[in-house]
């Protein structure tokens, strides 16, 4: 692609991701409504889609307030970090065989790196607020990220072993015959769980935990700064879904339809699945979350790694 096309495509990805995230705020609420036997936002525009616009207007016109007791610079900086990190993550996502921004040979690592950066946003936001709830939320998110990052990476290593590459495009191409969701079913499971935790969505939204911590790390945030956090969260959700599609569900691969359509379809279904999780599964206690991570997920991902390695060696030997 020419540099101009790349730039235009980049802008398109940017706009698409942000736009999708915005629509997702409405879509998620509608979907939750369906599953919880109620309506959800249905008043503004067809099916209530203009709720997005209304929410946006509201958030934009809100008083842009920084609490006097907060660490001003960090407080303002924190919400932008999450959005930037998440958007950067999209750079390595291959939407189609030839539809991507970057084909880094360490694409997977880049993705992992970007999602890890997002933690700082939550952590700093929590600390800078100078508020007990925010601090607790920040602390929780730090511990949660540190724990779940470990096997998030490990769960993907099986795929890397089978592919022999960190490049996401190579990983997709390696799934021509069989999507990795079959041989790497354990990896998929672990990555799914870690992905939810990483994007701190329900049921693993302990940093926020409205019922215990008011609003967790963003207790003191309002207006656009709050919107940035929400944007970052939804971007994270889309990014994780894109990643799962790419790594485990053959990316753009599929019969009859063009690749990007397949990609979009698979990603949307995954998003719906994430919303379903939110609708169905209650939030665990914090110690349960930690013990799940360290006592089950980590051994499971290590087991997957060893098993994959053994099978790969056995296959190669055979």
């Amino acid at each position, binding site marked *: 692609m020419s540099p101009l096309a790349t730039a235009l495509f980049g802008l398109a990805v940017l706009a698409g991701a942000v736009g999708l995230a915005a629509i997702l705020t409405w879509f998620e609420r509608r979907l939750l409504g369906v*599953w919880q*036997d*109620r*309506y959800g936002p249905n008043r503004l525009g067809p099916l209530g889609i203009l709720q997005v616009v209304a929410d946006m207007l509201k958030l934009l016109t809100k008083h842009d307030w920084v609490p006097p007791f907060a660490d001003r610079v960090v407080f303002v900086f924190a919400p932008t970090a999450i959005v930037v990190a998440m958007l950067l993550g999209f750079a390595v996502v291959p939407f189609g065989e030839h539809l991507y921004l970057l084909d880094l040979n360490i694409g997977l690592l880049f993705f992992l790196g970007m999602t890890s950066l997002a933690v700082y946003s939550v952590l700093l936001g929590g600390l800078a607020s100078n508020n007990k709830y925010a601090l607790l939320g920040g602390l929780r998110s730090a511990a949660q990220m540190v724990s779940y990052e470990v096997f998030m990476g490990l769960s993907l290593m099986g795929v890397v072993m089978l592919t022999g590459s960190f490049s996401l495009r190579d990983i997709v191409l390696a799934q021509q015959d069989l999507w990795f969701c079959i041989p790497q079913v354990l990896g998929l499971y672990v990555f799914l769980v870690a992905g939810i935790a990483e994007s701190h969505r329900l049921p693993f939204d302990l940093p926020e935990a409205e019922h215990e911590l008011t609003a967790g790390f963003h207790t003191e945030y309002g207006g656009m700064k709050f919107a940035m956090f929400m944007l970052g969260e939804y971007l994270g959700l889309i990014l994780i879904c894109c990643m799962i599609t790419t790594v485990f569900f053959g990316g753009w691969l599929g019969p009859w339809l063009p690749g990007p359509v397949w990609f979009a379809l698979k990603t949307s279904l995954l998003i719906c699945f994430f919303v*379903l999780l939110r609708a*169905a*599964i209650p939030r665990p206690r914090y110690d349960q979350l930690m013990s799940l991570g360290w006592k089950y997920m980590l051994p499971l991902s290590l087991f997957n790694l060893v098993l994959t390695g053994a099978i790969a060696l056995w296959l190669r030997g055979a």
Partner: protein
Amino acid sequence: MLKSLRSQLTTLWTILSHTFTRAETVQYPEQKPYLAPRYRGRIVLTRDPDGDERCVACNLCAVACPVDCIALQQDVREDGRWYPEFFRINFSRCILCGMCEEACPTNAIQLTPDFEMCEYDRNNMVYEKEHLLIDGPGKYPDYNFYRVSGLAISGKDKGEAQRELPPIDVKSLLP
């Protein structure tokens, strides 16, 4: 672990199956839901079957109120009935829990199936007795406290309440 996994998968499936069930909620302002008579909404003060106010200002509702949003002051009328000189409910504090109704020994205070009481000014959420008092007996059409109480009021002397004997003549020598 496997058991909980199974339970979670069942949960997911149950929720997913709700894709095809109808919404339980209604389109509220256009469509009004049915509220049972015992619904706990706006609080009213009711009247006896004979039309006099039921509240005897015993303060039990006030003390039962978990948010302390009821304040009143008792006084005695010329005819001997206890009544609230003022009776105030701060609905901006009220949680519509119905404890006052439970506590009321005269069935005076009752919760009604009306919850549409939003105001732009919080001061308008403070209801005084004239706002609370309604003209009927509410959910208990027959109860009349002074017909069972031993207190004499004008029109009901000692011994004229239900299941009471006429006053004893202390000076009588009859057994």
